[in-house]
């Protein structure tokens, strides 16, 4: 199986005046296509920081990230980091982060429109993704008109709609109650199988973490098999 994602010796140090905090102390992780990887760990161990570095929302102090064989640093050097985020990553955050002025359908179409996809095709693909997450009846609703669980499923649809090489999910069930959390996990798992998605999820949720075929635990800035 080909390696989709390769993180090598990732170090992240936060400097605040004279204080230096090493959040990540040299993390190595390889993800192959179709992997469902989960990282667990207590709050503040650096899970989200690691995810943000992989998603190019934050920069590592040192270390390299490769996706599809291309160094993330090259995107930074070419001032084209937006292309990396656009083409290579699908994000699901703890909060759904749907844009309140746009309908659910428009929110899901957004990554495709950013990729300059034809509007009709984007609409079709978005409708399909929303159908996959069980929101086909909610396409014309605004985020304020749907529940938290539905919003998070819409966010999942937005992350997968443009079929990126990897989906990064940061505590996707963190804001959901048990019932909605189970439903989300069920749908997420189905999506992964149906679409052969590559997923990296950081979570406290044991149910979600247990679904992964590769499970890790992060502690004191380092990653361990679990």
């Amino acid at each position, binding site marked *: 199986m080909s390696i989709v994602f390769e993180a090598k010796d990732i170090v992240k140090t936060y400097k605040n005046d004279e204080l230096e905090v090493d959040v990540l102390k040299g993390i190595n992780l390889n993800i192959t296509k179709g992997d469902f990887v989960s990282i667990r760990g207590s709050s503040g161990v650096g899970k989200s920081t690691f995810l943000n570095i992989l998603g190019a*929302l934050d920069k590592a102090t040192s270390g390299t990230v490769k996706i599809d064989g291309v160094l993330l640093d090259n995107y930074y050097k070419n001032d084209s980091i*937006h292309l990396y985020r656009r083409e290579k990553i699908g994000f699901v955050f703890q909060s759904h*982060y749907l*844009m*309140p*002025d746009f309908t659910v359908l428009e929110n899901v179409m*957004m990554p495709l429109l950013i*990729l300059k996809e034809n509007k009709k095709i984007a609409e079709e693909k978005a409708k399909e993704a929303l159908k996959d997450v069980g929101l086909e009846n909610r396409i014309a609703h605004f985020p304020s008109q749907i529940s938290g669980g539905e919003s998070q499923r819409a966010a999942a649809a937005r992350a997968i709609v443009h079929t990126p090489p990897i989906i990064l999910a940061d505590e996707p069930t963190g804001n959901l109650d048990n019932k909605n959390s189970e439903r989300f996990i069920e749908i997420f798992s189905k999506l992964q199988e149906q679409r052969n998605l590559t997923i990296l999820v950081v979570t406290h949720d044991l149910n979600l973490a247990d679904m992964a075929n590769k499970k890790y635990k992060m502690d004191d800035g380092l990653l361990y098999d679990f």
Partner: protein
Amino acid sequence: MLYLPFKIALRYIRGRSGNLFSVNTRLSFAGVFSGTSLLVVVLAIFNGFQDQFKKSLFQFDPHLIIQNESGDRKIKDWKNFVNKAVDKLEDKAAVVEGMIQSPAILRRYNLIDYVFLRAQEFQTDMAGNYILPDHFPEIVNPSKLNYIANEDVCLVGKEMAILFDLRVGDKIELVVPRGQFSLKVGVPPSMRTYKIAGFFKTGYYEHDSRLVILPIERAQNLFNLSSDTVQQIVVRLNDLKDLSWSRDKLYEIFKMPYTIRTIEDEHRNFFAALKLEKTIQITIVFLFIIAAMVGIVVATYNVVRSKRKDIGILKSLGLSNGSILTIFTINGFLTGIFATIFGIMFGIFLSHNLESILLFIEDIINTIGEWYALNYKPGIGFWQKVRLIPKNVYYFDHLPIYYDIEFLRAVGFVSVLLSGIASFIPAWAASRMKPIEIIRGADS
């Protein structure tokens, strides 16, 4: 591709479904709209006043006045000078003629007051009647007066008719100094009676209340001048832009002891006031520009602040800094364009109806004042009618409104341009935001 930034910007302007415009859009729209419309109203009135003053002055008063400053101060063989001046000024001059101007005393029964006498050339028709020249001011009574009888007649301003209770056909006596001053007799007066043929209106209160116009031959009789003698030669130009050029040309004919004064020399204070008004106009425009800019910057910053989370999401989805910049620039720019267009339209509407609005306000104030005076009796003379545009001060039948289209276009252009620039500043700040900071901020 501007499709997506445009779509997002328009949505931010429109707001969520059910709203006509977002609150931020309404605020920035209101700022630019009110600024532009008020500016249009202020400028329309400023320009209207200026235009009215200029028209009343330039249409009637001579643009160049040539005088003899030596001896008896008369110009003899004036027609010869007129012909020379016409040749010299080519097609720049509309009228070159002889003129007599002098202060005079008006007497009617026991009423005596000062007036200003002006005598100019009137052509005569086949029957010998005087024909009113094209550049003569509007005759308000009798209307459609084209000619007057070839006798001792005069025309007076309509305000003078009110001041001295004059009617068409009334006779007035004019008294002027005649001849040279001598220690023995002082200045001998010359007196003559003239029939009022009509009332004119120049729109300039000083003229309309004090000026008496006579055919030049009649004035020559009054002043005891021969028919080839006048006091001045005056020139009216087709275009006032040629004023300096024409004066220089006339100096080639009229050397010392002749002097040439322009209309600007004659009304130096008036032109200084006009210049001051222009400066005020520019200051107002400048203040408006600053206010509009601050308004748009604040409004767009508000939009950026309220859309911080969206910016984080869009950036995490891969939207470029340039597109973020475009979204918020378009946002302010489009709001600016619409607000400017509607502001100008409303400003034009408002200034056209300003007089009725002012009269309405005047009525309300007067009704309240009269009601208060009637019911509470605070004392005699407590309440005097309010006139927001006192006619005796401004002397206009109506509130003069004039649009300088070029100026309106410039206001529109500057306003739209500034909307773009003003929205660019916060838009640029939005484009530099780091998505991780926004997302962390939103989570915390």
